[in-house]
C-alpha cells in the first residue's frame, strides 16, 4: 500500500501551499481523504480522538439507505411490468435491470450535479469538501417519482444545494433538509411531473389504461384502496422510488438506531405522533382519508421514509434531547393532518418536516431556556440567602 500512498503524495505536490494549483487543493484533498484518513494529529488536549468522523457518520446513513434503494429499484421495474404488461412478470433480473436502467441515471445526475456544486463552492471559498452531500445525493432521487425528467432533477438538486445549503454556509448551517427542499422545489416548479396517476410507474404516460396512482391519491379522490396492508408494508405499490417499502426502511432504521447515527427519539416520537393523530381521525371517520386505518397510515406514502431518513437530519432537526421528542411528535401530527385535510396534496410528511424545520430552533429555544431559568432561580436563591 505504500506504493499507492507515495503515488498520491506525488499527485498532490502541485496542489500544496504556494504551488501552482493551490486553489484546487480542496478537490484533491476530498479524493485523498476518501481513500485515507489523513495524517493530521491533535495539537493539544484531548490528544487522542475517537475513530468516528463525519465521513463515517454519513457513510453509515448511506448504508442504511441501501435496502430501501435496492427495493426501490426492483419496485420501479415491478410496477412497470405489472401495469404495462398486463400482469405477466418477466424474470427477476429483468425486472431489476429495468428499474436500474431508470434509477441509476437519476443517482448519477444527482451526485454529479450536487458534488459538482459542492466542489466548486469548496474551491471558491477555500474550505474542505463536506460529506453532507453523500447522503443528500442519494436521498434526492429516492424521494422523486421514477419518471421525473433528468434535467428537472438536476435543477432541483442545484436549487437544494445552492439555496438550501451553500447560501447558509454549507453543511451544518442549513436550516432546511436539503433533500426535502429538492423535492419541494420540484413539486412546486413542475407539479405535473410530481403528482397525478401517471408518474409513479415508469413509462406509464405512453399508455392510457393505467391506474398508477398512489394509495393516498386514490383515497383523496374517495376511491377504494386496491392494495392489501401486506403489499403496503412490503412496498409493492406505486410511489416515489425509495419510499414504498416500509420493511426496507425499517432495516435502515435499525441500522441508524443500532449505530446511534439516527435519533431514535425523533423516529419513535414521530410514529407515536402520527399514530395518535390517525387514531383520532379514525374515531371521527367522516371521509375516506379519515377512515383509513391508523396502522395503514404508518406504512403508506412517504411517512416511514420521511420519519427515518429526513426528520432525523441532525442539522435541520431540533438539537436538544427534549426538543427532539416534541419535534418528532409534531411531525407525526402534521403529517396526518395534511394528509387528511389537503386532498390536493395528500402526502403530508414532506411539508410537515419542512414546517417543523422552521420550528425546530424555537423548540430548542424553549428547552434551553428551561436550563437558563433554573440557573437564574438558583442565583436569586443564593442572593437571598446571603442577604438574610
Amino acid at each position, binding site marked *: 500500500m505504500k506504493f499507492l500512498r507515495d503515488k498520491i503524495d506525488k499527485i498532490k505536490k502541485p496542489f500544496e501551499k504556494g504551488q501552482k494549483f493551490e486553489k484546487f487543493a480542496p478537490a484533491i484533498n476530498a479524493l485523498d481523504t476518501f*481513500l*485515507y484518513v489523513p495524517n493530521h*494529529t491533535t495539537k493539544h488536549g484531548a*490528544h487522542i480522538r475517537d475513530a*468516528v*468522523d*463525519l465521513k463515517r457518520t454519513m457513510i453509515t446513513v448511506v448504508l442504511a439507505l441501501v435496502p430501501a434503494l435496492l427495493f426501490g429499484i426492483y419496485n420501479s421495474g415491478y410496477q412497470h411490468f405489472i401495469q404495462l404488461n398486463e400482469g405477466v412478470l418477466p424474470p427477476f433480473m429483468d425486472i431489476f435491470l429495468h428499474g436500474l436502467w431508470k434509477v441509476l441515471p437519476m443517482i448519477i445526475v444527482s451526485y454529479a450535479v450536487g458534488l459538482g456544486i459542492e466542489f466548486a463552492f469548496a474551491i471558491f471559498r477555500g474550505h474542505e469538501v463536506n460529506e453532507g452531500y453523500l447522503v443528500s445525493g442519494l436521498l434526492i432521487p429516492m424521494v422523486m417519482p421514477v419518471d421525473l425528467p433528468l434535467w428537472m432533477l438536476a435543477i432541483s438538486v442545484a436549487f437544494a444545494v445552492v439555496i438550501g445549503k451553500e447560501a447558509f454556509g454549507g453543511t451544518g448551517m442549513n436550516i432546511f433538509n436539503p433533500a426535502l427542499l429538492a423535492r419541494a422545489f420540484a413539486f412546486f416548479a413542475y407539479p405535473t411531473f410530481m403528482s397525478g396517476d401517471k408518474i409513479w410507474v415508469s413509462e406509464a404516460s405512453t399508455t392510457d389504461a393505467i391506474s398508477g396512482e398512489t394509495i393516498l391519491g386514490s383515497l383523496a379522490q374517495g376511491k377504494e384502496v386496491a392494495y392489501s396492508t401486506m403489499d403496503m408494508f412490503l412496498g409493492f405499490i406505486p410511489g416515489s422510488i425509495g419510499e414504498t417499502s416500509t420493511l426496507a426502511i425499517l432495516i435502515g432504521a435499525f441500522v441508524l438506531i443500532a449505530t446511534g447515527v439516527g435519533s431514535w427519539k425523533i423516529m419513535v416520537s414521530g410514529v407515536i405522533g402520527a399514530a395518535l393523530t390517525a387514531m383520532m381521525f379514525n374515531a371521527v371517520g367522516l371521509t375516506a382519508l379519515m377512515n383509513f386505518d391508523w396502522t395503514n397510515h404508518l406504512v403508506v406514502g412517504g411517512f416511514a421514509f420521511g420519519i427515518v431518513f429526513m426528520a432525523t437530519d*441532525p442539522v435541520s432537526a431540533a438539537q436538544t434531547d427534549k426538543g427532539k421528542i416534541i419535534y418528532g411528535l409534531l411531525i407525526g401530527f402534521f403529517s396526518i393532518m395534511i394528509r387528511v385535510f389537503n386532498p390536493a396534496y395528500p402526502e403530508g410528511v414532506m411539508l410537515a418536516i419542512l414546517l417543523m424545520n422552521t420550528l425546530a430552533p424555537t423548540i430548542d429555544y424553549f428547552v434551553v431556556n428551561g436550563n437558563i431559568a433554573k440557573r437564574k432561580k438558583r442565583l436569586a436563591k443564593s442572593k437571598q440567602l446571603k442577604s438574610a
Partner: protein
Amino acid sequence: MSKDIRIKKGLDLKLKGEAAHKVADATRSKVYAVKPSDFHGVTPKMVVKEGDNVKAGEVIFYSKADEKVKFVAPVSGKIQEIKRGEKRVILEILITADSQDVFVEHSKKNPNDLSTEEVKEHLLASGCWPFINQRPYDVIAKSADTPKAIFISTYASAPLAADVDFVLADKLVAFQAGVDALAKLTSGKVHLSLKGKGKSVFSDVKGVALHRVYGPHPAGNVGVLISKIDPINAGERVWTVAPQDVATIGELFLTGKFNATRTVALVGSEVKEAQYYNVISGAPISDLVAGKIEGDNVRVISGDVLTGTKVKMDGNLGFYSNTVTVIPEGNVYRMFGWMPFASPSVHSASRTGLSWLMPGKKYAPNTNLNGEERALVVTGEMEEVMPLDIFPMQLLKACLASDIDKMESLGIYEVAPEDFALIDYTNTSKLEAQQIIREALDLMIKEVG
C-alpha cells in the same frame, strides 16, 4: 458520613500502559525549569536575575496582577538562564541544581492554631499559593478572595491517571494538615470526594464533608463534585486543590519547607514498564523517560491524554503534573479508516465502530485526529459525556460567538476546560472544545473579571 454522588453520563477509556503500584526515585537532574506558562493568566515579574544563587523554595518571580502570589524555585542552585520568547515573554527559568537541596526554612506551624490571615500569609510567602485554583475561570485563586467552599477530589478517573490513594497512602498526616489549613480559608466547607467503590485511604480524613462518587470519567473531576454539591452562581468563588498539592501544603506546615518533590506516574502504551517515580517538579522530561520508552515517534504528554499538555523531549515536567503519558504519534495515513466498523484497533465511543461490542478491550491510541475538522453536524453526542447540568453544544456555540450574556446564562462559570475533554474526544466534528472554553473563560476574565 459520606454522601453518595452517582453519575451515568461519561466515558471510561481503557488504555494500555497503566502504572504498576511501584515507586522509584528519579535520578537528580542537572537543570530544572520553572515555566510561567504552567500558571494560566499569570504575568511574571522576576525577582531574581541570571547568575543569582537560589535556595529551594526561594521566590523567583511573582504575579504582576496579584503581587502577593509568589512562585518559588523547586531546587537550590544557580539561575542559569531566563529564556524569553516574542515580545520578551518569559518562557522558562532554568536553574542549575546543586547536588543537594538547601531549603528556605519557614517556621513549623499548626494550622489549627492560626487565623485565616496567618494561614494565607504562610501559603503566599512559601510559594504554596499557586496550588489553589479558583472557579470560575480555572485560574490561580486571588489572594484577597474568600471562597464559598473548597473542593478536593481524590478520585482520579481520567485515563491512566495516577492512583491518588496509592500515591498519598503514606502522606496522610501531611494531607490532613493541608486540609486543616485549607479549612481556615473558606467561609463554607471543604468537600472531599472518594472513589465510589472499594476502600479509600481518605475515608478517615477529619474536618471535611466526604462524598463517594460513582460513575464513569469525568466522575472524578472536581467540576462534577462542585455541580452536584454547590454549583457556582454568578459572582461566587469556589476553590479547588489537587490531592497531592494538599499534601505539599500540609508538609509546609509540618516541616517548614516547600518540597517540590512529587510522585509522578509514567504511563502509556509506549512506556516499557509503567510505574511511579518520585521526581522534583520542573525536571527535564528527557531524564524522566530516558531508556524507559519504546520507539521514537512518540508524544510525551505532561498530564493525562485528555487534558495534558504536549511536551517536547527537551521540555520539562509541569508544576501541577502528576502523570506523564507517552503514546505513539498519529502522523500516519490509515486506509479507508472512515468506513463504519473498520480499524478495530481504534476505539470509538460511537457505535459506528466495533468497540462497543468489546467493552473490556484496552487500546493503544495514537494522536491521529481520525478525520478532519468539520462544522457541528451531529447532535446529542456531547450530552452523552457531559454529566453537568449544562447544554454543552449551546454553550460552545455561545463561546464561539463570544456572546457573554448567553455564556453566563448557560453556565460558563461552572465549567473548566477539563469538563469538556471528553467532548473533544468523542466529537464527530473534531472540535477543540477545551480550547474554545479556555478562550471563552479568558474573555470572561477580561470583560467581567
